[in-house]
């Protein structure tokens, strides 16, 4: 395919999303059709590009001789873009029902669509400057989505999100500038930095860039925007704060480690140990805090923090096995968590119950929703044969093989976290299905979610099982695409 097609999935949603503002607010049906059409077109174009990849890169702009705006679809980008392109239409479908009673819909759908374009831009960027630009664009497009409710609470959450993101961008910029100066702008597997003039500066700037991109990946200590942002409508929390935005952060970290800096230089340095320690602490911290949350969506948000750091931890192992494990968990966690959020959202939408103790007995009235949730919960815990087990297995074996004594600690933390995950994910499921006789929680008026919400949930649950059962095929596929 001609490389000119690369601009389609990026600019089509951005332009059409902006145009959707023109549709009058009361014409819901037309807008839904328009939005769905835009997203589907972009998704189809992404899949077409992935199956029929243009070999050349596409230079859109040349700022200076070595500063340019270049797009190219490589293996890692393919995985990330296909993942987003698959989940975006599902979330749109879910959002049509979920958002039907909300206000400010033109703004919501416009930015929801435009964020898709920015995410594709991150996936398809061929050098770190281009990625950085789209990365910032994604921040800007998602702020209005967090602010959607337009109350004080929402505004504060959005402000916090903005503070963290923009602050992170400043950190990341230091690293980006260093890479550009050292001719390490383009993404090449294996990286560029081999023997810099001043290794200490190079490592310090690596840690800066890691922290900067780590804001979106919610790495401790820059995580606290994520639970706050869970005030956003569920489709946003599900897609952006469990998949697109946060995974863009993890993806950027993978790009930084494996494609810009290169593992040879950082491996074994204090910087590796530092970032690995941060990731490990975040894993434990996220699970531990999730266990203490009573608020259903916040609990899932903390669980996301923990699981993102699984990916980051695998990435910081700086081996090929680590990269494979990171991508594996990136894919599987997206499927699992989006499903879990869909279930939580269905409960919120149908019953306006936000807290876990209020869920008692609700599973009898919403059986399908909670069966799907239970599948996500088991999968996230890492129970075979669900897909979460596969990625955890690969992360753990990768860290065993990493020849780094520190990484062994990570395995122990993974297991402790898995136990905590079981506790915080299974307890809502158990509460929902088995009401204690003496509990006064009244569930008589609860109704099951309708088909528009159930279909996306069901697809996610089925994917959890299918990818788990066909794990070896999925792993081979990822290996093939990444060419490792």
């Amino acid at each position, binding site marked *: 395919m001609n490389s000119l097609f690369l601009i389609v999935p990026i600019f089509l949603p951005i332009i059409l999303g902006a145009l959707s503002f023109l549709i009058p607010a009361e014409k819901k049906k037309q807008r839904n059709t328009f939005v769905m059409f835009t997203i589907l077109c972009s998704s189809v174009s992404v899949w077409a590009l992935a199956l029929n990849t243009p070999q050349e890169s596409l230079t859109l702009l040349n700022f200076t001789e070595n500063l340019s705006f270049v797009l190219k679809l490589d293996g890692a980008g393919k995985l990330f873009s296909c993942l987003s392109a698959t989940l975006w239409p599902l979330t749109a479908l879910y959002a049509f029902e979920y958002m039907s009673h909300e206000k400010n819909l033109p703004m919501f759908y416009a930015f929801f669509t435009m964020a898709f374009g920015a995410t594709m831009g991150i996936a398809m960027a061929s050098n770190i400057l281009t990625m950085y630009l789209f990365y910032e664009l994604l921040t800007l497009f998602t702020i209005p989505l967090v602010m959607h409710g337009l109350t004080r609470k929402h505004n504060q959450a959005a402000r*916090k999100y903005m*503070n*963290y993101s923009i602050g992170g961008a400043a950190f990341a910029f230091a690293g980006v500038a260093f890479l550009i100066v050292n001719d390490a702008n383009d993404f090449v597997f294996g990286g560029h930095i081999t023997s810099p003039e001043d290794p200490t500066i190079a490592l310090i700037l690596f840690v800066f860039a890691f922290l900067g991109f780590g804001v979106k990946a919610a790495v*401790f*200590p*820059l995580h*606290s925007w994520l639970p706050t942002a869970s005030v956003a409508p569920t489709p946003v929390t599900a897609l952006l704060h469990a998949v697109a935005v946060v995974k863009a952060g993890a993806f950027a970290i993978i790009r930084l480690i494996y494609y810009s800096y290169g593992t040879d230089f950082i491996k074994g340095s204090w910087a590796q140990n530092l970032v690995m320690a941060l990731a490990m602490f975040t894993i*434990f*911290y996220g699970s*531990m*805090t999730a*266990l*203490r949350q009573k608020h259903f969506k916040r609990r899932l948000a903390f669980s996301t923090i923990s699981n993102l750091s699984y990916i980051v931890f695998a990435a910081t192992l700086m081996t090929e096995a680590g990269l494979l494990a990171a991508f594996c968990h990136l894919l599987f966690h997206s499927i699992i968590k989006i499903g879990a959020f869909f279930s939580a959202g269905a409960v919120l939408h149908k019953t306006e119950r936000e807290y876990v103790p209020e869920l008692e007995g609700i599973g009898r009235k919403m059986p399908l929703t909670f069966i799907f949730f239970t599948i996500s919960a*088991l999968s996230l*815990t*890492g*129970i*075979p*044969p669900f897909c979460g087990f596969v990625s955890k*297995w690969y992360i*753990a*074996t990768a860290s*065993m*093989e990493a020849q780094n004594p520190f990484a062994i600690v990570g*395995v*122990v933390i993974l*297991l402790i976290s*898995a*136990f905590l995950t*079981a*506790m915080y994910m*299974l307890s809502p499921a*158990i509460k929902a299905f*088995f*009401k*204690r*006789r*003496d509990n006064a929680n009244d569930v008589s008026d609860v109704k099951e979610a309708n088909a528009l919400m159930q279909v996306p949930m069901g697809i996610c649950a089925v994917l959890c099982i299918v990818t788990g*059962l066909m*794990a*070896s095929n999925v792993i081979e596929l990822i290996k093939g695409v990444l060419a490792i």
Partner: protein
Amino acid sequence: MTALTMYCVFTPFVAAIISALLGKYEKLRNAVVILATFISLALSVLIAQSPARIVCFASLNFQIGGFNSTYAIIAAFMWFAAALLSPQYFKDHNHKLSRYYFFFLVTMGATLGVFLSADLMTTFIFFEIMSFTSYMWVIQDETKDAMDAGKTYLAIAVLGGMVALMGLFVLYNITGTLMIADLYSAIQYVGKSTELYVAAFCLLFGFGAKAGMFPLHIWLPKAHPVAPAPASALLSGVLTKTGVFGILVVTGQILRDDEIWGYTLLALATITMVLGAVIAVFSNNLKRTLACSSLSQIGFILVGVSMITLLGEENALAANGTFLYMINHSIVKLVLFLCAGAIYLGAHTLDLNKLKGYGRNKPVIMITFLIGACSLAGIPGFTGYLSKTLVHEAIVEYAHLSHLPIITIIEWLFLFSGGLTAAYMLKLFVAIFIEKPTEETEKGKKLSPLSAIALIISAVAIPVIGIYTPLVEKITYPMLSLVNGHHFHHEIHYFSFTNLKGVLISLAIGILVYALFIRKVLVKNKTYVNPMDGKISLENQVYIPLIKILTAVFGVICRAFADLTDFLIFLTRKSVLSDAKEHTEHQRKYAYALGDVVDHVKHDKTHKNANLFVRVSETISKTTQRISSNFSFALFMTCFGVCIILVFLIISFVS
């Protein structure tokens, strides 16, 4: 053969879905369930006829022959028997039966998968499925007790599963294979290391949790009694054996003939054995006694396993004894729990005081219960006697070989626990079948033919093997390869005086305990009392407080870290950007007091000046804040400073 193995394992899974779809047509569904268990049983017998080999399906590996086939047959048989009793058991309380049967069959498939697995990965996958689906049995009744027990069960199952997985990671990292048959040679090749012990003890933790080994036994006495009787029979009889299976793999293939492993296992096993028996003596609840008895019997089995390791090349007695013990315990617990189910059917209670004399005039239950009880107590003529004798002889043998006094003590504890077994079984039997009925005892109803068949076919094997002893070798010899066990060097005279002596001592202890302790201390005014009830609980007094403390401590740490960044941002905002503060109460007070003084001086009664002062002070502080919090103010101040410097420079220049 591959296809047959697949059918054997996956028939229950498919049947589970069919049974769920047939939920409304109860009779048809019951037939499907019984048929499915029967097909699996037939297939497991069929595949056992072929020579030992490994079959692969997708990424799953299955082993045919040896221990695997034998235990698959036993498991399938037990499910078949439990399925036969289920229709009558659930006739009156058909609460969520579709769910029960669905998970009944799924667990069956998973358990067959565990026993037939040829590599530990396959074992683990089915093991986890089994753990989670059997949770549904425990909470079947959804009473408070059941939910509570379910919570403990799930927590231990998840914890055990995770730690076992950790063990597998480490093991895989050392050996590069998880095929059970290749493990030993792989470990010979790389040699023993600390990591290997880590792997082995992680596996011991995981599988020991399922087996009900001390100190992870806490779920067992809670979960087994609350499950429906057919499910309790399977939980006690088969599911605990999946844990023992894992421990056998470690014993035979990972740490073969290793002393550290042997002694650790022996210590834990002995504690489990004595502890279970002691709680069982105190218990007043039929099923709880049986559950605690399972705990104790697992201890007996694990003592046998540890003897296999410690005796090394001389392990013929220990290995054959252990396998026979496992089989005996599975079948006996099937019989006893099915009897308990049959009793519960009529009496709707499990309290011994309300069951007094319930079993008089019920010959089928009485005889099958008696057979189970005798075998469990180790009375000659029943399988239990043979297995107990073999394991006992193995301990005696090791005591001779090692000259360690502690082994002799363990031998006595073994006999003592055997005595307690006899005592609590006697207590149950006397209470239910011999004592005179009281007003509280219900009449009960007749067993359905299906249930009677279930009881009889379960019980019939016990005396047959017990009397026709040559069968023992036929059953246990094929299983030996799993633990590198040896054949008997010479014929065993089961009924010689030395062998009978052990059991006689045991029985004597049992009768003494019954007569002097149970009748004197535990029976007051003709009712059974339990002075220990709920007073000592490892779970409530150690684990739960420990978990609470740990979560609290880590929670506080995490909480402290949670807002670290937010706090820094807050601090920066307050110091650098200097957010506008609210006008404080203090300032207002001082201004008012000052104005008041002026009012007093002027003899003004209207507090004119006081109010004026407050207004002025408010205006001043607001203005200063507005100015000082501004960025331009900072610039202005800088300019001011620069100007002063400039003036200073000019002056110094001029002068």
